[in-house]
């Protein structure tokens, strides 16, 4: 079930009714949330519900065992068990084929004829999200940052909470789990925020991202390119993936908000960033902080000298790239960002006071450089093969204009302008929730226009959310 489907509207309406009926019983509410979340997930493929339940159960049990373990060594053993189980699940369902194929390619290149066992497994939707969320719980308990919950139902609700189950944000137990253990208060400002986020998020997905998708496909599904096509196609994809993913995150947060829950902000105007580090503080925040807390810092972070820091950054981002998908272009994308972060760090360390005070001109230059860096990264991310990356990069020297250039330009402007204008305004007026400070009539005008846009483009091509595949 996806947010941009009629069945979700029916599901959510029915859920709200039942949610109201159980308002006096906390336990019944959590049972309802688990049942609804499993229905939401099972709508896609019920067979993978067992995997979701298994992952949750393992970490629930591990959490309790770690707490009761008499020695540090026993605690470590239980944590290792959790990490191994989670990584085996992820490895089997997501990466097995990739590693087998890559190994087979390697053998073929060495002159062998490999006959390796292949598994044709469907990738369970959102597996990377819920596995990371569940695993971080066990790590937090091990680190004594969190007291494990004794309620399986609450834990199942935390892992499977339907607004953020299949495409994040990757929640931290310390933030979300306690909300299932207490009575939640729903206020008018929360409903206002929830509705705004749902409408704006849905507009970004249905009206912007889904209309940018064919523009992206026109370039990335081609076999021959020129500079205008590559530039426009890459910009189109950069905006498509942002509208798609941030749209999902906004709907998720909005849906949770009207139920009285608070889930993390996942995006904070990332295309306003003026360096790679700032970009990652604004883009997919829940993943970047997860990687920082559970990978970069345990690797040593920046505590072991500049060289090791750069290696840690690179390793973290390569694994972050691989988290997105089992393909070499994601590894390359991760390495690109890791290198960018390392170079920026080296530059920032040596940057003189004078440069730092460079003011508006320096910031404008830094922004341009960052966007060139980020958007070339999107080319690596979207490309289907290494040959395509090389072909598209080489085409940047060919300034032949495609016949459809004008039509493409009009579409690109039409489907990016609403986002750019809104974010420019948001960046100057206090961030993503700034429209909530508008007078009610003004926000009503905007929400009415956005709703019309949603209806106009609703289910046009039923484009799935990009991040479902991760």
């Amino acid at each position, binding site marked *: 079930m996806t947010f941009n489907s009629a069945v979700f509207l029916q599901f959510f309406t029915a859920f709200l009714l039942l949610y109201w009926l159980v308002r006096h019983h906390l336990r019944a509410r959590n049972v309802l949330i688990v049942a609804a979340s499993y229905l939401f997930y099972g709508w896609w493929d019920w067979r993978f519900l067992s995997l979701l339940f298994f992952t949750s159960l393992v970490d629930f049990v591990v959490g309790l065992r770690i707490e009761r373990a008499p020695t540090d060594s026993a605690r470590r053993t239980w944590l290792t068990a959790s990490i191994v189980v989670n990584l085996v699940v992820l490895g089997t369902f997501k990466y097995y084929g990739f590693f087998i194929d890559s190994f087979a390619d390697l053998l073929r290149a060495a002159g062998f004829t490999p006959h390796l066992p292949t598994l044709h497994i469907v990738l369970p939707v959102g597996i990377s999200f819920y596995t990371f969320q569940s695993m971080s719980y066990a790590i937090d308990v091990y680190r004594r940052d969190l007291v494990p919950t004794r309620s399986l139902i609450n834990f199942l609700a935390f892992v499977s909470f339907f607004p953020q189950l299949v495409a994040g944000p990757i929640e931290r137990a310390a933030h979300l789990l306690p909300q299932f253990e207490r009575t939640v208060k729903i206020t008018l400002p929360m409903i206002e925020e929830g509705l705004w986020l749902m409408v704006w998020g849905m507009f970004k997905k249905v009206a912007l991202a889904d209309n940018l998708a064919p*523009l992206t496909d026109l370039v990335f599904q081609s076999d021959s390119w020129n500079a205008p096509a590559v530039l426009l196609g890459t910009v189109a994809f950069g905006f498509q993936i942002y509208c798609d993913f941030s749209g999902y995150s906004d709907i998720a947060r909005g849906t949770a908000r009207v139920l009285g829950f608070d889930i993390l902000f996942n995006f904070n105007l990332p295309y306003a960033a003026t360096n790679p580090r700032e970009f990652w503080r604004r883009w997919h925040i829940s993943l970047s902080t997860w990687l920082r807390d559970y990978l970069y810092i345990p690797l040593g972070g920046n505590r072991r000298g500049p060289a090791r820091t750069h290696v840690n950054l690179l390793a973290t981002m390569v694994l972050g790239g691989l988290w997105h998908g089992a393909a070499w272009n994601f590894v390359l994308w991760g390495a690109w960002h890791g290198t960018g972060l390392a170079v920026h760090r080296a530059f920032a360390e040596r940057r003189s006071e004078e440069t730092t005070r460079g003011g508006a001109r320096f910031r404008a230059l830094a922004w341009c450089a960052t966007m060139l860096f980020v958007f070339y990264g999107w080319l690596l991310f979207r490309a289907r093969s290494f040959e395509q990356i090389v072909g598209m990069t080489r085409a940047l020297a060919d300034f032949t204009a495609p016949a459809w250039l004008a039509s493409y330009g009009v579409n690109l402007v039409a489907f990016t302008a609403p986002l750019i204008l809104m974010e420019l305004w948001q960046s100057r007026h206090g961030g993503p929730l700034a429209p909530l400070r508008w007078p009610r009539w003004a*926000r009503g005008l905007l929400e009415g226009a956005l709703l019309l846009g949603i209806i106009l483009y609703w289910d046009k091509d039923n484009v799935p959310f990009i991040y479902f595949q991760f």
Partner: protein
Amino acid sequence: MRVLKSHFCECSTMDVARLLAWPLAIIALFAATMHLAAAAGWLPAPRPTLDLDRTILTHQLEASRARQDATLVLLGDSSCLMNVDAAELTARLGQPVLNLGTLSYLDLNASAELLRQFVAANPGQLRAVVLLQHPEALRRPAPQEYHTNLLQHLLDGRDFGPRHTVQGALMSLLGLEIFQSRLLARVLPAPLPGAFRQTYGFSADLDRHLTEHRGSLRDPDVQPLRGSAEYRLAPALERASRDFRAAMPSGVKLLVGITPVPEEFAGRSYSLTRDAMLSKWGQWLEADITLTNLPPMLKDDRFVKTTHLNEAGVREFTETLARALAPHLR
């Protein structure tokens, strides 16, 4: 044990209703404005170039209504539209040709309507009409309701959308259909689907291509040859053919032909079937000439799908068609 409450709400139903009132009022105001503006004639006529089919139909209808230099008009289904290069035919015949072929989902009544529009816009100019259909279109018992309605709405200058879906009904009710087909489609070209997008780009580019190529188009969408090779004339075709004949202006020659099918796919005996079908169809149409010397079949590698030719196929068929037509147009 104390039972904890799940949640409580610090706002009333009225508060939430007030919250929703403004967006809903804006939507209602928009709907009223659109319907009023359309009814009062303040908006331009619908031009729903929103996808491949609608762009083709809109273009061909507009072409039929415009002043043209053509003295020979090609009419028929998508095999007429996509298998003949009208610009090449113009050069070979030495007289201007306009391709008004449309889609296989329409029937001869649609072609007859385009012919009437052309004759009204270009009185006394037409010397001959060439009617070309693929055998798959000839055995179709009835046209698609959607496409027939679409053409009728285009002819009448009325808004049209798929209203059988919830979204379609809402689009119509809220005036979005009017907004989309009368305003938005005029300024925002729609990306075409699949292979058409890779070849032509957007609706505006397809529209321009059709104009530049005198109404002809090439199908870039390669698909396996499939379907049934048992060709026959649908009984309903007789009535439609007689109606088409009635739409023919006097003194204008009617030449009729059947476009080719893939050789291996159809089987060798198809030649006889094609001749029999063409003869019968020609009688129903009271055609001046039946183009029996057009090839019933071409090699399979000349096709992108059962009904449409590739570039080499179009070149070959156009050449053959020019040779077949030349003696009758002197």
